């Protein structure tokens, strides 16, 4: 039988809300972190080295933060009454599968301080709709990652635990410098929500790509329509079996659209690579179409209508 539904929490109170805990933890009251530490010394050893501990203990900004352990776990008096009884777990907010606190209650605790700002669009984000808890990515109790209080050593490893397709993409021949540690998933995506699909941080895919590829921003005298429309028309952003993160091999990549006169609709084939036959073609060799149309992202040359200068 499914457990009876607890009442949904009210909208997340802001950090400066009065210290009313309502029905949280079955109406428990605060006991202070010294009481917590008396039993949870191991956790305290780790917690002491976290950013949360520094903020709560050394420079709290409000009454809630001063509660330290109970700022996140809620008031602990009812937990103290029978701490080992599983039936008493609703008396304390926990952030593990084993503990069983409803996701909305867990996240509400985090949103007491972390609403707005970077998490302005958490509600309604794809992560929120998939009922992810903040604790599915973060562990604010322990020193697992150096920054971000993550559940894995790095941002990328944390994301990989659910996004295995992207992990496989980054293992391909051409990829973004993510496995090498030079960028992270969060350079492009805001896991806390965005107004742009795929949690992209900018207003559009192209505006995002220009963050690192500013030279391609233009606008150019001669524009290539799909390039201006969306970089992902031609590129697979995480990784590809093809050069330059392309979605398929050139010239077939370009021939998905270009069937005009002259050479565009020609079937370039195995007989036209070097050593493949008597008539090698520049369109099948090396950079293929870009052997001639080298300014494919746009040209600022007066003669560059075909992106050749």
């Amino acid at each position, binding site marked *: 039988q499914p457990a009876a*539904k607890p009442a*949904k929490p009210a909208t997340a109170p*802001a950090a*400066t809300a009065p210290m009313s805990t309502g029905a949280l933890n079955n109406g428990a009251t605060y006991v202070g972190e010294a009481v917590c530490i008396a039993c949870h010394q*191991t956790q305290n*050893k780790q917690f002491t*080295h976290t950013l949360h501990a520094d903020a709560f203990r050394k*420079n709290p900004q409000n009454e809630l*933060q001063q509660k330290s352990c109970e700022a996140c776990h809620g008031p602990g008096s009812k937990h103290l009454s029978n701490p080992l009884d599983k039936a008493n777990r609703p008396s304390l907010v926990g952030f593990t*599968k084993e503990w069983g606190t409803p*996701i909305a209650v867990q996240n509400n605790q985090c949103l007491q301080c972390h*609403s707005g*700002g970077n998490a302005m669009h958490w*509600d*309604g984000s794809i992560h929120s709709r*998939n*009922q992810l*808890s903040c604790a*599915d990515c973060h*562990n604010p109790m322990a020193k*697992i*990652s*150096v920054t971000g209080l993550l*559940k894995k050593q790095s*941002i990328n490893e944390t994301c990989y*635990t*659910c996004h295995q397709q992207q992990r*496989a993409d980054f293992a391909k021949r051409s990829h973004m410098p993510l*496995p090498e*540690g*030079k960028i*992270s998933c969060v350079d492009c995506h805001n896991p806390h929500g965005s107004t742009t699909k795929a949690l992209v*941080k900018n*207003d*559009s895919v192209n*505006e995002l790509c220009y963050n690192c590829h500013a030279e391609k921003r*233009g*606008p150019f005298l001669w*524009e290539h*329509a799909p390039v201006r429309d969306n970089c992902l028309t031609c590129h697979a952003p995480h990784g590809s079996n093809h050069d330059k993160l392309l979605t398929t091999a050139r010239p077939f990549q370009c*021939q*998905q*659209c270009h069937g005009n006169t*002259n050479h*565009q*609709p*020609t*079937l370039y084939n*195995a007989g*036209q690579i070097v050593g493949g*036959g008597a008539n090698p073609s*520049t369109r099948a*060799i*090396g950079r293929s179409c*870009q*052997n001639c149309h*080298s300014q494919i992202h746009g040209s*600022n040359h*007066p003669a560059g209508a075909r992106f050749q*200068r």
Partner: protein
Amino acid sequence: RAVASPFATSATGSGTTLANKESASAAASLSSDADWPAAKHTPTGQLLKLPLAVPKPDEIKKTASGWEYSGQLEFGYLGGDADERNAQYRMYQDLDEGAYLNNFSLLLKKADGAFFNVTGGGAGHRDQYYGLNFGRTNSWGLKLFFSETPHVFTDNYKSLWSGLTTGTQLLIPGLTPGGTASTAADTAAVTTAALNAPPTTLSLTRKRAGARLDVTFSSAWKAYAGYAVEHREGARPFAAVWGNNGGTAPIEIAEPVDYDTTDITAGVSYVRDLNAFNFRWTTSLFENKIDTFTFQQPFRITPQGFTTTPAAGAYTQGRFDLYPDNQSHNARAEYTRKFPDFYKSTLTAVVSAGTMRQNDNLIPYTHLAGLTLPNVTILPGGDWNTVGSLSRPTAKGLIETRLADLTFSVNPSADLNVKLKGRFYENDNNSDPYYAVNPNAVYVDADAATAGNQTRGISYGGFTGVWGRPLNDASGSGGVLFGTNPNPTGSVEIANHVYSSKQFRFGPTADYSLTNSANLNLSAERETTQRTNRERARTWEDRYKIGLVHRALGDSTLRASYEFAQRRGSDYVTAYYENTFSAAFIPMPTAVGTNVTSWAVRNNSGVRNYELSDRDQHVANLRVDTMLRANLDVGVSVQLRESRYPGAAYGRGKESGDSANLDLNYQPSAKQNIYAFYSFQRSRIRQALITAGNNVTLGVVSPLGVITPENAATLGSQPGGPFYSLGNSWSAKNTEHNHVVGAGVKQELGKATLNVDYSYSLGRSRITYHYGIGGAINAANAVFAGYRMPDLATDISYLDASLRFPFTPRLSARLVYRNQWEAIRDWHYRNLAATPVVTNNVNNPPTITSLDGGPSAYRVNWFGVMFQIKL
């Protein structure tokens, strides 16, 4: 080891890590906290990684002045194949044999929250990084950072030039700029020079430095400001071509890169009670220090149409106008208001506005003075090597972007949340249209009835002059209307395309709690996109999605979703770009027997560009995370995706991608952690085209009827017509398979710590094609063509192992071993290393001079000993 975000946050900007490949490896070998209680799981059911060993609170070291401190330094020596130069290996990392300072860090903290943190790694290498971060926790922090990232493109480039990273590249001795009278001799000389040239690495390095200040004024108000400068320098593979319509003597050159990008960001956020507000400003200033790039070329280019002095060998060099300087600014405001008394509702509104602009000086078509065309008279100031031959001197590019996003969230009951979302995004290209016209030139009277030059230009778009543009340093006149050919033509480009788009999206979502641990979500939305100057003025896509999350299926969490999307649109007009071709003012001839292909054919009218085409898409996702045992979790995920393009008889017709993944994590104790994973991906793209056939000639009886001026454009572009004969049809299918397996172990062996990570990635891409012999490929060539390209194959194996021995609590030694190899076969580059100059006839300029031998296999075994010293 990644350290504090140097510049960006999860909401804005790039630059979230300071790390490199080796620092991550070092961090993986650190000991786990043996005191940590039994492994726990995330709310989804994934094992939480055990935390790192840290000192107990009373063991934290302190100075006499009260600063808690910790720090470490890792350095040592690398041997074996650490010097490997292969581009695939060194793509984004930089290692060498010899002494190596891998990483260091120092952290000081005080009881009042003050902190000081310095970190770095990869010292002296192209992937080095450094960070300095200080301030007071929860009050303010200032970050300073510097990071380098290499990007190696090839290590197998055979350079024929000096000064590869500069804006002027000169041919090496032995090669003649502009070639000689003997193309065969030039080809031989270039071949010899290329084969004898030492392999050169083409790469660039990003060097990024900056600062960011974060201030917490109160629990309600926060602000930040950041400034970063990135310098990119190096060279990357590039290419140039010559000739009448382009296509003559393509040659691979190196594009010099010398960029500076300045990023500025500042913002403020406010959260109090029921209101939250963000404001952010970003500016990005891009400067290309090599605005134009000149290179000498070694072949005799015969000017087609243009008359030059000297007549032969004039085309000694080419010139590119590289990426122009540009600026971008964006302002964004976000506001959320909660209405707890109105069904616990929330309103979120976002507005954003930005510009992207550039106004670079344009360069003339050629450096050659005195070029003439048979049918053109140059007026004073209109020489092709001057900006007087252009319709304007600068680019005048301007795009304005606007975003408005509104979400209203309401909870009609405790179990139901409903959101109404609306979004508008506009990419408004306000660049002035550019006309390819020489306003200081006129046509010689082509009727031959009037003696002497005529002051006669063609007027269009407010300009009068000679239309079109000399191609490729004015080595070809085919782009100039009536330049050499007095016959009218409809396909000369006379103006640019200015693309703008508007996107509207709206729809509801609903999230219903089925039980305490199960949720059902539904969404529907319509996305409408309006584009200017595209084949389709308007497309709309309807998406419907259903998702289920169940968190209590025993010890499992299930997430499943299915989405169906259908895109349709307004009429698809293949020949939309007529106003940018000479057909805009040169009417199609009407005389029987006239070849009107240049008016009639813009594209196969059955082709649909896939970003505009009708599309039916299905995406299904299933993911299960389960705790098999308290110390063992399993994750299984599957995605099936299929996109069909029902309106596309040609072009991309179908695309699909499926994947399946399995993850295992076993963590029996703080002394042992084992993981393994496997991913499978399969994707397919199907496409089709028709090879160009006969010209479209008025009066000819085509398979679709007699060609007339009235139906020429229809029949000419229609599959089955004179130009696109169905017998010339071909189709291709790209099928890709990828397998990635990985496994690793972290094992405490007494006082030693062993860490091993292994992965193997296999990628195969097979392109098969079907055609009619005698149609798309003739019988003689079909023998060589077969029915598929060679497989494009990559195999990558990676093994990283380290064994750390602590000698004392402060001193450890770490033995490091790396075995990494990659086998790669890319048919684009087959045999190119041995055949850099490909020619079908030695007396003609080469088919291609491809100087990049392409990616190649490598195998490295390197080892090292690293010493870790802790404070």
